[in-house]
C-alpha cells in the first residue's frame, strides 16, 4: 500500500493488545528449501546408511502393499512412493516416548518406527479400523478425515507437558490437508500453548487431482507458520538427511520447551493417489519423470557413493538393504495372504465400555442370524450373502452393486 509519511507525532501508550508478541523475521522460512545432499555438509555416516536402508525398505513396502491390492488382499492402498524420505525421517526423528500422528497415507512412517506392517495395514486391509494399540506403540490411529489428527497431537503434547513428561508429538498432514479448518485451529492452539508438537506437511503437489496452485496462493506452506507465531521451515522432502535434520532440530526444540514448528517438505507422490486412482487424468508424464530424476533413493545413493560409504568391509550396502527389503516384503506377503480371523460379534465390542441394552439386543439378533445362516449353509440355502468377503475399491464395486 501507499506508504505515507508517519512522523510519529501520535504515539499512544502501546496497549497490551497490539504489542507484537514475537519478532516475525525468525519465523519466516528460508527462500530455498533446506538441503544437505550434495552440499558437502558434514554428515553422520551411520545416519546416512540407516536412512538409506530404511528408504529402500520403504520403497519395497510401498510396492508390496500396492501389489496386495491387486490380489484383493488390501481394500485400498495410498502409496507413499516418492515420499519415503519424509516418512522415514519422521520416524527416525522421534524417541521411544514420542508420539507419531499419521494420516491415512503414512503407514510407512509407522512401519519405519517399528510397527508391524500387518498391524499398520489393518485399516487398509479392512478387517478392523486400527490394528495396533496406540498407547503401546505411540502411534495414533491413521487419520482418514484430513487434518483432524492435528488437534489430537496438540492435545496429547500439551497433556504430556502438563504432566512433566518429555514427550514430543509429530503430526503428518498433506498439502491438501492444510486447507482444513482443523489445521488452522491445531496450529493456533499449539502456538498459544507452546505445546511440544511438530507439524510436518508433506507437500506432494496434489490433493488427489487438485494441484497446489488451486489449493493455496501462499508463497510457501511454511509461510503459514508466522501467522501462528511459530517458526516455519521449508525443506527438500526428497533429501532424507535434510528432512531428518530439520525435524530433529524441531523435535529437540519442542522437547526443550521451545514450542511448536511447522515444517513443509516439498516432495512428490510418484504413484497414483491410491491404487484405485488414475493419475493420468490430472498430470502428465513429463512432470512425473522430472520428479523421478529426483527420487530420494537415487539421491541418497549418489551421496553415499560420493562419500565412499556404499561398501563396507566387503558388504555392499545396496545388497544388504535390498535383501532386508525383500525379507520384509516376503514376510508381509505371506502374512497378508492368510485369511484374517474375523468374528462378526466383535462389531458390538468396544462401542462402549459396556454394551448398552440396545446393543445386547442387536448382538443377540446377529448371533441368531449367524446360527441360522450356518444351518442354512449346510442345507445350501438360497438366501445369499449380500456382499463378497473381500470388497474391492470403488472401481471394482460395479460387480458389487445390484
Amino acid at each position, binding site marked *: 500500500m501507499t506508504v505515507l509519511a508517519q512522523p510519529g507525532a501520535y504515539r499512544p501508550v502501546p496497549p497490551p493488545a497490539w504489542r507484537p508478541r514475537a519478532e516475525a523475521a525468525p519465523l519466516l522460512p528460508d527462500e530455498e528449501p533446506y538441503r544437505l545432499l550434495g552440499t558437502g555438509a558434514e554428515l553422520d555416516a551411520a545416519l546416512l546408511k540407516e536412512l538409506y536402508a530404511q528408504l529402500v525398505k520403504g520403497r519395497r513396502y510401498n510396492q508390496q502393499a500396492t501389489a496386495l491390492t491387486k490380489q484383493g488382499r488390501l*481394500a*485400498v492402498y495410498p502409496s507413499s512412493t516418492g515420499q519415503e524420505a519424509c516418512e522415514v525421517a519422521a520416524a527416525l526423528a522421534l524417541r521411544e516416548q514420542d508420539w507419531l500422528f499419521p494420516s*491415512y497415507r503414512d503407514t510407512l512412517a509407522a512401519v519405519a518406527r517399528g510397527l508391524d506392517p500387518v498391524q499398520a495395514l489393518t*485399516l487398509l*486391509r*479392512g*478387517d478392523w*479400523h486400527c490394528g495396533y494399540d496406540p498407547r503401546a506403540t505411540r502411534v495414533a490411529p491413521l487419520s*482418514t*478425515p*484430513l487434518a483432524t489428527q492435528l488437534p489430537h497431537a496438540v492435545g496429547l503434547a500439551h497433556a504430556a507437558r502438563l504432566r512433566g513428561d518429555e514427550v514430543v508429538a509429530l503430526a503428518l498432514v498433506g498439502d*491438501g*490437508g492444510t*486447507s*482444513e*479448518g*482443523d489445521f488452522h485451529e491445531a496450529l493456533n492452539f499449539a502456538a498459544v500453548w507452546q505445546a511440544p508438537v511438530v507439524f510436518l506437511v508433506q507437500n506432494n503437489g496434489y*490433493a*488427489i*487431482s*487438485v494441484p497446489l496452485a*488451486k*489449493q*493455496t496462493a501462499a508463497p510457501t506452506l511454511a509461510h503459514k507458520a508466522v501467522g501462528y507465531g511459530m517458526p516455519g521451515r521449508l525443506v527438500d522432502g526428497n533429501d532424507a538427511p535434510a528432512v531428518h535434520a530439520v525435524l530433529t532440530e524441531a523435535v529437540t526444540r519442542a522437547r526443550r520447551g521451545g514450542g511448536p514448528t511447522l515444517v513443509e517438505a516439498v516432495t512428490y507422490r510418484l504413484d497414483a493417489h491410491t491404487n484405485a486412482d488414475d493419475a493420468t*487424468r*490430472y498430470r502428465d508424464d513429463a512432470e512425473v519423470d522430472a520428479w523421478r530424476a529426483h527420487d530420494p533413493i537415487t539421491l541418497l545413493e549418489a551421496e553415499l557413493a560420493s562419500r565412499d560409504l556404499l561398501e563396507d568391509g566387503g558388504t555392499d550396502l545396496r545388497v544388504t538393504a535390498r535383501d532386508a527389503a525383500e525379507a520384509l516384503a516376503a514376510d508381509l506377503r505371506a502374512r497378508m495372504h492368510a485369511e*484374517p480371523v*474375523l468374528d*462378526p460379534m*466383535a*462389531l*458390538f465390542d468396544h*462401542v462402549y465400555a459396556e454394551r*448398552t441394552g*440396545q*446393543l445386547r439386543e*442387536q448382538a443377540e439378533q*446377529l448371533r441368531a*442370524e*449367524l446360527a*441360522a*445362516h450356518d444351518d442354512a449353509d449346510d442345507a445350501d440355502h*438360497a*438366501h*445369499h*450373502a*449380500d*456382499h463378497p*468377503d*473381500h*470388497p*474391492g*475399491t*470403488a472401481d*471394482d*464395486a*460395479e460387480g*458389487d*452393486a*445390484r
Partner: protein
Amino acid sequence: MSTAATGSGAARPTAAPASAPGADPARKPTPLAQALGQALRDAMAEDPAVHVLGEDVGTLGGVFRVTDGLAKEFGEDRCTDTPLAEAGILGAAVGMAMYGLRPVVEMQFDAFAYPAFEQLVSHVARMRNRTRGALPLPITVRVPYGGGIGGVEHHSDSSEAYYIATPGLHVLTPATVADAYGLLRQAIASDDPVVFLEPKRLYWAKDTWDPAHPTPVEPIGRAVVRRAGTSATLLTYGPSVPVCLEAAEAARAEGWELEVVDLRSLVPFDDETVCASVRRTGRAIVVHESGSFGGPGGEIAARVTERCFHHLEAPVLRVAGFDIPYPPPMLERHHLPGVDRVLDAVDRLQWESRWTEGGGR
C-alpha cells in the same frame, strides 16, 4: 437392479423434456451415476446460474466420476475444483447463492460433510427463515452416503438422521436411475436448500433409460409404491430399496405379498402415500441402513403409528443398521440390513391373530 418401474400415481414432468417412456429405442442400461452426471449437465446447460463446486469435481470428474466432463464442457468457473475444506466450500456456496447463483456442492464422502455441519445447520437451513424470505438459498448439497462398497472407516456413514432433524432442509435420496436424474433436476431447480443423498452402492446399478428423454418422475415430497402388495408394507429408501424389492420377491414364495414404498423424499415426508399403504396392509416395516437408535426409522414408525394406529395389526418394526460405528469392509455385510433380516422381521409381524394373545389389548 430392477427398480425402473415408476410406480403408482401420475408422474409429473420434471424440467427435462418429457417423452413417452418405452417408445424410445435410445433407452439403454444406464448406471445411476451417469444419470446424475446428466442431470448436472442438463441443469448447467439450461441455467447459467448453476455452478458445481467441490473437491476433485473438475479435472478428475469426482472420485465417483459423476461430474466427469463438466469442467471441460462449461469451464472451470462453472465446475470448480476447490481447496480441500468442506465448511469453506459450503460457506462459499452460501455467498454465491446470496448473489443469485444456484450452487451444487459435492461432498466427497458422507463423513466428510461433517466439517460443514455448522454452515449447513446454522446458515443454509435457516437463511430464508432468518431473512423473512428475502434470501432463499437454492443450494444442492450432494452427499454420497451409505456403505456396501468396501470403503475404509469414515467412507460409509449413513448421515440422514442429522439432516432430517434440521428444519429448513429438504432431504432427498434416489433409488432408481430415473429418480437420480429427475430428483436431482428438481433439487437444483428448487429454491430451497436440498441435501441430496446419493446411495454409493447404487452408483453402478443400471436401469434402462434414455438420457435424451429422461423418464418423468414424481415431484419432491412424494413417495412411490415400487411394488404393490397386500400383506405388509416395507417403507424404505435409497440403498435399501433394491434389498426390499428382492425381499418382496423372496417373500412371495412364502405366501406374503409385500408392498414396497420408496420414500424418495424424507423431507418433506409423504404421509399420504405411506399411510394409504399401511392402512391397506395393516402392517409395516421401516428398512434403512442408518443406525436404528435415533435414526429415520423411529420418526417414520412413530408418525405412521400416530396416523394409522387403529389399522395396525402389529407394531411398526424397524430393520436397520446396528447402533455401532460403521464396520470395516470385511464385516460390513453383517451390519447392512439384507434380504434375510427383512424376511425375519416380516416373520415377526404377528401373523397369528392378536386376539388369541394374552396381552392387554
